[in-house]
């Protein structure tokens, strides 16, 4: 399986869904329309491409691009041919909601909870979307770059001592 072959297969099947593609470090990366991401991943899993291992789901936050502020990134793997692919989908901050993959991949459960925990992205259809790593009453999603990194209430930490 080559990048060109898989790209061709996906674009033929979902011509409307693929917004852009790139191969950084020879790693096929597609940007998929948010509404179609589940359809595409389902196809990759069940078609003859057999890209049927979900390596990772994670979020990303680009505060400087409001129309593509929040992203979800899926890494998929074909174990037989050792072929890897990366799918990205972007959304606005107000509309940070994407379909859950839990009914395709059981392993998506914890990954989506983690992504929700750190980025506040909601996963439609997730059975138990709760905070997983941070404490329940933390009150914010840490990876959204919206709060001061330092604990501003501590007065005995002097910035000039830390070279900041």
């Amino acid at each position: 399986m080559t990048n060109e072959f898989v790209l061709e297969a996906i674009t033929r099947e979902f011509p409307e869904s693929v917004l852009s593609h790139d191969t950084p470090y020879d790693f096929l990366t597609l940007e998929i329309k948010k509404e179609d991401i589940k359809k595409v991943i389902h196809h990759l899993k069940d078609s003859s491409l057999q890209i049927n291992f979900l390596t990772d789901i994670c979020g990303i936050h680009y505060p400087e691009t409001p129309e593509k502020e929040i992203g979800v990134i899926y890494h998929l793997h074909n174990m037989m041919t050792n072929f890897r692919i990366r799918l990205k989908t972007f959304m606005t901050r107000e509309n940070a909601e994407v379909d859950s993959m839990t009914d395709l991949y059981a392993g998506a459960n914890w990954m989506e909870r983690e992504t929700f925990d750190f980025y506040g992205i909601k996963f439609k259809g997730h059975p138990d979307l709760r905070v997983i790593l941070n404490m329940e009453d933390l009150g914010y999603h840490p990876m959204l770059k919206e709060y001061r990194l330092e604990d501003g209430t501590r007065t005995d930490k002097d910035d000039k001592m830390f070279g900041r």
Partner: protein
Amino acid sequence: MSDNKPVIRMDAEAPEGFEGEGFFATKLSSVIGMARKFSLWPLPFATSCCGIEFMATLNPTFDASRFGMERNSFSPRQADMLMVCGTISKKLGPVLKQVYTQMAEPKWVIAVGACASSGGIFDSYSVLQGIDRIIPVDVYVPGCPPRPEQIIEGVMQVQALCESESIRRRDLPEYQQLLASYDIN
């Protein structure tokens, strides 16, 4: 160091009192203070590198046992010196607080190392910026991580505290107020 013969001192200072042939009279509080001083029972709450240094404090080279703290208690039961060695994350905070509240009075707390004392280098969303945010601390041991000698120094500071403070520390209004400020009773 290995050339030095170990010196065993049997002449620890007695508390102030009246002495005569066959009797010695002193305040009960002094005797209890002395007894507490030499029978501290540490509860190590070790999460990271400071915990390893603390373990080194227990090994024969440094031998924390000679302070009367022969055995470590990995349970709040009967323990009276909580040693928090290492980074405490915000999620772990309530656990530490529960361990502290389960310990019976009298109890003392040592924050070992920069992380336990102030969050250390971890000025991040997940790390508690010092355990004195959730429980009162008696002695802070600086260092990242501190050497066993420094931890021993911290223990000796606690010993000085136990010896000199009121045996009914818990009943003092200041102490009540302090615990109330941490929402502990």
